[in-house]
């Protein structure tokens, strides 16, 4: 990638780059090619210095009822605890003589039979917290015993492995960036819909000129790699922030945002797929992720959420629908990945902040609980790792809740080391044992 090419692209896009001290957006050199010619999109991602693996996180928000997801249908205690909510043994999609999947998870059963799904049973952490916020924070930060943590486990992964100049390291679908993806240095990109990730004023052309760099004398922006937009100068040994370098920083970020927005919008709008995703933000989010993977963004982690799992009352029908939506999305996404021939590069991880109480409550619902299953999807999964760990006992409980067998940080360590090929200790603060889940 040469600067003259960069400049040509800018001019094509209507950005007024006139001076010789050309403003180079921080990530343009490595990624602008895809935007310049949308038809020339490679099937696989261009990676700089790392392998091209992708992690897609699916968060089930509100506390998914693990017991009615991976169902211990062979246990009388399940039927005793759930007189109004239990699934009959004959409808459960059996995995062995003890557990089976919720009847609406047929697509997951298929993936399981194909060796594409690993179900990790009884995942949790010590002294489980039953507040949504706090428990979600614990899963996101991976630091259960410290109140103040401003970074998440994936954010620290970015901090340790990315330069921080490309805004696409992590992309979350949603109005707010999940704490899990926030690093001390690297922040994720997030948007609910790609069409909201753009400037909505009318005069786009002049907006670009006013934010595009070299129109003002103050905008001699240093090229990338000079400190990630610190915007600081040294004056008499004291670092002082000035209006000029603050403007540079803002201008650079605005330009990054514009290029990134153009590119993502184009990728998503031009995306054709035969997969049918479920309606709603979860299904659309997965479709958007598939479009971005197809478009070759250098993104390593995508994040999608499905909400509504806080089923305190009349859980039955609601949870059935959620299971169906969840499974449809997963199934559509994996069909899409196979069609794109990108499936080998992708691992999907599903979790919820906690499971629910074993005993149903008086309102045909369930209250906040503790341990629950996690799902990992992908062709990299070892067939024998279909069902990992033992199902927690339904009778030996802690305050009415399942006791975890596997700490979620063992799963994170496994993903970091065996999938993302990065040491997990600097990210998780201590060395957690990995679980043999992946093909060697």
């Amino acid at each position: 990638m040469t600067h003259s090419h960069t400049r040509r692209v800018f001019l094509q896009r209507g950005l007024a780059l006139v001076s010789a001290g050309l403003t180079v957006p921080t990530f343009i050199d490595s990624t602008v090619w895809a935007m310049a010619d949308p038809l020339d999109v490679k099937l696989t991602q261009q990676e700089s210095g790392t392998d091209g693996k992708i992690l897609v996180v699916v968060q089930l928000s509100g506390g998914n009822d693990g017991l009615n997801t991976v169902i211990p249908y062979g246990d009388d205690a399940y039927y005793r605890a759930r007189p109004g909510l239990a699934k009959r043994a004959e409808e459960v999609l059996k995995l062995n003589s003890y557990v089976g999947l919720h009847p609406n998870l047929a697509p997951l059963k298929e993936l399981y039979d194909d060796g594409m799904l690993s179900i990790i049973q009884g995942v949790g952490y010590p002294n489980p917290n039953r507040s949504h916020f706090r428990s979600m924070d614990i899963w996101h930060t991976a630091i259960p015993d410290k109140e103040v943590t401003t970074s998440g486990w994936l954010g620290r992964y970015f901090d340790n492995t990315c330069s921080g100049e490309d805004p696409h390291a992590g992309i979350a679908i949603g109005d707010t960036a999940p704490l899990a993806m926030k690093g001390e240095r690297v922040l994720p990109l997030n948007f609910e819909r790609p069409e909201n990730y753009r400037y909505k004023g009318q005069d786009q052309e002049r907006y670009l000129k006013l934010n595009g760099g070299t129109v003002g004398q103050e905008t001699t922006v240093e090229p990338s790699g000079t400190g990630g937009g610190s915007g600081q100068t040294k004056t008499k040994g004291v670092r002082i922030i000035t209006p000029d370098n603050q403007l540079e920083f803002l201008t650079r970020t605005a330009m990054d945002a514009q290029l990134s927005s153009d590119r993502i919008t184009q990728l998503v709008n031009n995306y054709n797929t035969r997969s049918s995703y479920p309606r709603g933000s979860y299904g659309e989010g997965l479709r958007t992720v598939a479009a971005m993977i197809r478009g070759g963004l250098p993104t390593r982690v995508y994040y999608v959420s499905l909400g509504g799992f806080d089923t305190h009352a009349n859980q039955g029908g609601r949870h059935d629908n959620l299971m169906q939506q969840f499974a449809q999305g997963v199934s559509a996404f994996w069909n899409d990945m196979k069609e794109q021939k990108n499936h080998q590069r992708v691992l999907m991880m599903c979790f919820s902040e906690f499971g629910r109480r074993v005993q149903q409550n008086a309102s045909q619902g369930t209250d906040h609980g503790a341990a629950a299953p996690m799902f990992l999807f992908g062709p990299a999964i070892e067939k024998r790792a279909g069902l990992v760990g033992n199902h927690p006992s339904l009778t030996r409980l802690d305050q009415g809740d399942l006791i975890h067998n596997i700490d979620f940080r063992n799963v994170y360590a496994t993903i970091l080391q065996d999938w993302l090929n990065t040491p997990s200790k600097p990210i998780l603060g201590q060395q957690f044992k990995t679980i043999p889940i992946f093909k060697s």
Partner: protein
Amino acid sequence: MARLHPQLEPFVESSSDPWDRVKAAHLLNRAGFGGTEQEINRVLEAGPQAAVDELLDFPDGPSDLISATDQPDLSHIEGYPRTFAERRKLFEGKTAEERMLLNQRMNQANQQALRAIANWWVQRMAYGPYPFHEKLTLFWHGHFTTSARDERSAWLMWQQNETWRAHAAGNFGRFVKAVSRDPAMLDYLNNQQNRKARPNENYARELMELFTLGIGNYTENDIKEAARAFTGWAHDGEAFIFRKFDHDDGEKTFFGVRGNFDGDDIIDLILRHKACGPYIASRFWNFFVNEQYDPAVIASLGEVLRENDYELRPMIRTLLTSKAFYNRQNIGSQIKSPIQLVVGTVRLLGVKMPEVNRLNGALNQMGQVPLMPPTVKGWPGGKMWINTSTMFVRYNTVLWLAGGEPVTSGRRVIDAINRRNRSSGIQVEVDGSTEQIVDRWVERLIQRPISEQKRAILIEAIGSEPNESSVRNMVSLILSMPEYQLC
């Protein structure tokens, strides 16, 4: 009296560095949420000393001291018991299901009341009589942090907001003592669980690390001993109580001094620590002047605080009238916080402040929801407000506000605006040449000179024959300049 650092000496105007509109606007931006043309004129006339005195001239008390009617709507939580004892009584004899329903209703009522408080507060920042008082309250809210994510009681969050307001420019020592008795704070930092038999060090640690001294100025043992002194400081759901039997009244050693200390004694010892004045001075500097500082200036400013027995007004006055404050490098060098951006836009454009319910999504995406700081460290601020996602949200939110309904009722502080045309959005008048129109709007919104090249783009946007729609477009372009993100 120690000698004041030269940078903190009062700003005196000269022919090369006059007291001008840019400086007057700077004062109103930092010591408030942005000034209208008339407000800038008044500050310009008064000069920095008198203007700062006037800005600081608000009653040291909660909001009902100022107005009994300008209060948040707490009707949602009326009728629900506040104290734990009353709540227990209410739940007595109820079935599990009834309790759950009652709990749900109470949670909902608290959520509604919390939104009402946030809404009231943001409206007050925009239209209230003392914007600087509210700016200081916001500063302290980020300093002595409590989040409604953890403290679910709207009543306690409201009490805290009022306590912070009452002490915002008062005496820092008395303020810290009030903070240490604040029920929401006792909850947030677990002093409610700090008992003689099982001390909890959370409050003692943050009291020193974040609230008064900064890291590195105390030992782990000082934390342990301070925690003992605060045992038994608790609340009953409504107000502070001292639980005598949970209090450890044994001898403690703190900062090398031995004594039978309680929490107030610990605070007095902290105030005597040489790091306390400079630490608080640095927090003020970071929030009101610049993200970065010269330690020599901070040491001197901290000395002002100490010499005045921790009265905050003299230090604030020194800071806001100083040469340093009006240094060219400090004007327009601050990235507006999301609240500053929203409230400032409403004030500068003279448009109506939307209900917080309609703003919450945008504030959340920009990273600053009032009453919900992300961690005990408050909002990180500065460059942390900005990334490729928030950039668009910030631009689009401002444009959305500009397209909103104009203010329809007269308010004291806000300038009168042309309200004849109620269609939507800002009022624009097409009089004078294109250049004059552009310059007027740049002065009103950005309040500092902009580059000739950018000015030319704005002039070209209007064209030679200005009309309402082209002027409106030009205004939206000013609002979409990176310069507008700074104050």
